[in-house]
C-alpha cells in the first residue's frame, strides 16, 4: 500500500536569505534579520497580520546574547500578540512545526525564520556545549574534531579518500559562484589540515546570516506563488547521542526520515543536502540513495555558507526556489543538527506539472 500523503497540500511559497558574511558587527540579530523578513513578505504581498503562525529557530549560545530570539521578534512586528513559537534548533525544525500547525487546519499561512551570528564567539567550542554533559562535554571535543573522526571512519571503510573529499569541496564552491548570498564562492585550495583528515577546504566557513520562508496551504499557496513548492512529505529522526554507539559511516536516521517523507517512492532530480563537512555529503548520498543523475547542492550547500541555525532552513528554501523557478520538478531537502549528522530532517518538494 502506498503511503498516504499529507493531510493538506502545503507549499513553500517564498524564500529569502541574507548575504552570509564572516562578521556582522554593525548589526544586532534583529537588524540582520529584518531585511530578510521584509523580503519574503514583499514576495507574497502579505503583511504580518496576514500570517497565521510564526515559528523561528536560533540559539542564544552562538552570540552569547541572552533572549536574542525575543528581541528578534521585534523585527516581525509581534504586537498586537501574534501566534508564535521558537525552537532552539535549526530553522528547518521550525518549518516542521509550522507545517504541522498548518496540517491541523488551524492556520493557512506561516512565517518561518532563523538566524545565527557565530562571529562573536568561538563556534567550534560553543558547539561542545550541546554534547553529553557527563562523559563528552568535559573534554571539549570541538565540532571539527568530531567531524574528523567521522571522516577517518569513512576513509578506513573505503567509502572515500582525501581526493574525493577535495572534489566535494571544489564542486560545492564552484556551484556557489551562481549564488550571490554565499560566503565562499569559487573553488580554492584545500589548505592545511585543521583536524586530520579534514583540511580547511573540507570545513564550512564560519559566518553570520539569516533566512526566512513562507508556507501556505492549498489555493492560498496558488494565489501567492506562480509555482508553489508543495511539501509532499517531511520527517525527522535522531540517533543515539553517544558517538561510540553509532556507525559513523552511515546515517540510518536520515534514511528513515527520507523513507517516511516518501523520498524513495519516485526519483528526485535535485537534492539540497545540509552537509557542513565534505565527508558528510558522502554519508548522506549513500543514506539517501542519491545517484550521479541527481543535482546535489546547486546552491553550493553549507560548504559555501553555513550560518548556524539557518543553514538547514536554507536547504529547504533553496530546493523550493528551484521548484518555483521551474528548474526542478521533484527535490529532496535535508537538514541536520548535532555532531556527525546526529539528527536529520528530510522533506520532499514538488512542482505541479507544467
Amino acid at each position, binding site marked *: 500500500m502506498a503511503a498516504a500523503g499529507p493531510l493538506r497540500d502545503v507549499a513553500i511559497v517564498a524564500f529569502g536569505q541574507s548575504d552570509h558574511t564572516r562578521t556582522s558587527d554593525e548589526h*544586532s540579530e534583529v537588524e540582520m534579520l*529584518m531585511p530578510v523578513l521584509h523580503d519574503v513578505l514583499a514576495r507574497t504581498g502579505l503583511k504580518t497580520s496576514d500570517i497565521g503562525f510564526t515559528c523561528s529557530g536560533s540559539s542564544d549560545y552562538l552570540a*552569547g546574547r541572552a533572549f536574542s530570539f525575543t528581541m528578534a521578534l521585534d523585527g516581525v*512586528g509581534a504586537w498586537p500578540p501574534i501566534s508564535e513559537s521558537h525552537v532552539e534548533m535549526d530553522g528547518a525544525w521550525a518549518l516542521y512545526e509550522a507545517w504541522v500547525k498548518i496540517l491541523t487546519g488551524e492556520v493557512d499561512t506561516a512565517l518561518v525564520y532563523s538566524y545565527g551570528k557565530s562571529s562573536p564567539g568561538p563556534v567550534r567550542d560553543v558547539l561542545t556545549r550541546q554534547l553529553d554533559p*557527563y562523559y563528552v562535554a568535559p*573534554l571539549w*571535543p570541538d565540532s571539527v574534531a568530531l567531524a574528523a573522526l567521522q571522516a*577517518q571512519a569513512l576513509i578506513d571503510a573505503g567509502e572515500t579518500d582525501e581526493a574525493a573529499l577535495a572534489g566535494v569541496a571544489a564542486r560545492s564552491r564552484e556551484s556557489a559562484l551562481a549564488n550571490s548570498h554565499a560566503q565562499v564562492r569559487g573553488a580554492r585550495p584545500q589548505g592545511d589540515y585543521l583536524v586530520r583528515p579534514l583540511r580547511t577546504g573540507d570545513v564550512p566557513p564560519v559566518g553570520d546570516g539569516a533566512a526566512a520562508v513562507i508556507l501556505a496551504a492549498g489555493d492560498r499557496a496558488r494565489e501567492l506563488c506562480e509555482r508553489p513548492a508543495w511539501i509532499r512529505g517531511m520527517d525527522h529522526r535522531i540517533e543515539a547521542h553517544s558517538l561510540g554507539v553509532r556507525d559513523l559511516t552511515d546515517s540510518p536516521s536520515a534514511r528513515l526520515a527520507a523513507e517516511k517523507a516518501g523520498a524513495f517512492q519516485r526519483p528526485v532530480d535535485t537534492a539540497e543536502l545540509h552537509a557542513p563537512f565534505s565527508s558528510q555529503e558522502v554519508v548522506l548520498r549513500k543514506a539517501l540513495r542519491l545517484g550521479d543523475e541527481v543535482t546535489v547542492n546547486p546552491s553550493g550547500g553549507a560548504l559555501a555558507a553555513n550560518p548556524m541555525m539557518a543553514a538547514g532552513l536554507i536547504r529547504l528554501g533553496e530546493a523550493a526556489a528551484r521548484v518555483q523557478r521551474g528548474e526542478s520538478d521533484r527535490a529532496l531537502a535535508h537538514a541536520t543538527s548535532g555532531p556527525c549528522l546526529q539528527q536529520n530532517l528530510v522533506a520532499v518538494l514538488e512542482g505541479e506539472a507544467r
Partner: protein
Amino acid sequence: MPEVLKAPLIVEFPFTRSLGPVQSAFLTGLRERTVLGVRTSAGKVLVPPVEYDPVTAEEIRDLVEVGATGTVTTWAWNHEPRPGQPLDTPFAWVLVELDGADTALLHALDAEGPDSVRTGMRVRVRWAAERTGTIKDIACFEPYDGEQQAQPRPHGGEFEDAVTGIVAPARLDYTYSPGRAQTGYINALAEQRAVGQRCPSCRKVYVPPRGACPTCGVATDEQVEVGPAGTVTTYCIVNIKAKNLDIEVPYVYAHIALDGADLALHGRIAGIPYDQVRMGLRVEPVWREGGRYPDHYRPTGEPDADYETYKELI
C-alpha cells in the same frame, strides 16, 4: 556613522549535575581505576555506560567490568589543542573500544604524531594522578603492545563514598557588539544625553532603541533626543539586598517615561523617601563623575504629571 561598540563578554557557569545510578558507578569506578560498562538485554556491553538502552529505551542496570586496554576504532589528529581539551600538546582524538566492550568511548590519545596512529591500534588508559570521579580521571590513552584481554566480568557497581554529582565548569569568551541602534544609545549616554529611535510607520519613539519597532516590524532609524526629565509611570519598593550591590534597602525601582519617549525605561529613584514616590512623579537623571549612564533619578520639584498624559505608557 560611528563605529559600533564592541566589548569582551565572558559567559561562565559551573554546571552542577546529579548522576543516575549507572553514571555514578561508572564515574566512581574511574576514580578507583576500574572501568565499568552496562549490559543491554540483547547482551551488548556499552562503555561508557548509560542509564537507558539506546535501542529499546528500557532501564539497564547490569554492570560489568571491562579492560583498561582497548582498540582504536577511528581517530583524528589534533595538532592545535583548544582550551579545555584533555592534552595541551598535539594529540589524536580517538574512539576506543575497550576490551570486553561493544561500543567506543571518546577520549584523547597521547601519541608522537599522526604517523604513529592508526585505526585498530592497541591503547590503554593513562590514569590521572588525582582522580575525583569525572571522565577526566582518564588523563588520556597511550599506545600499548598487549593483546586483547579477558571478557567482561560481573561487577556490583558498589564503591565506598560513591560520587553522586559532578560540577562541570564551562566558559565561553565572546566579543560582543550590540549593533547600530544600541551603540548610538550607549554613546549618547556617555555624553549624558538620552536618544531614542522613531518608528517611520507609527511614529513611536523607543528608548532604549533596539533597531526595530515591535508593532510595525520595521527598522527605526531616525534618532530622536528625549528627556532629560521624565515621569514615573509605575514603581516598586525593593526590600531584598542584591549580592554585590552597594545600595541600601528599601529603595525604589521605577518605570520612567522620558519626555518625548513612547516607552518607559527602568531606573532607581533616590533623593526622596521611598514611601513618598508615586505614579506621576517628575524626575531627572543624576550622573556620577565619569559615569556612562545615570546613577539614579531624583525629583525635579515640578508638579506631578496628570495621569492622562502617561496612562498609555504604563
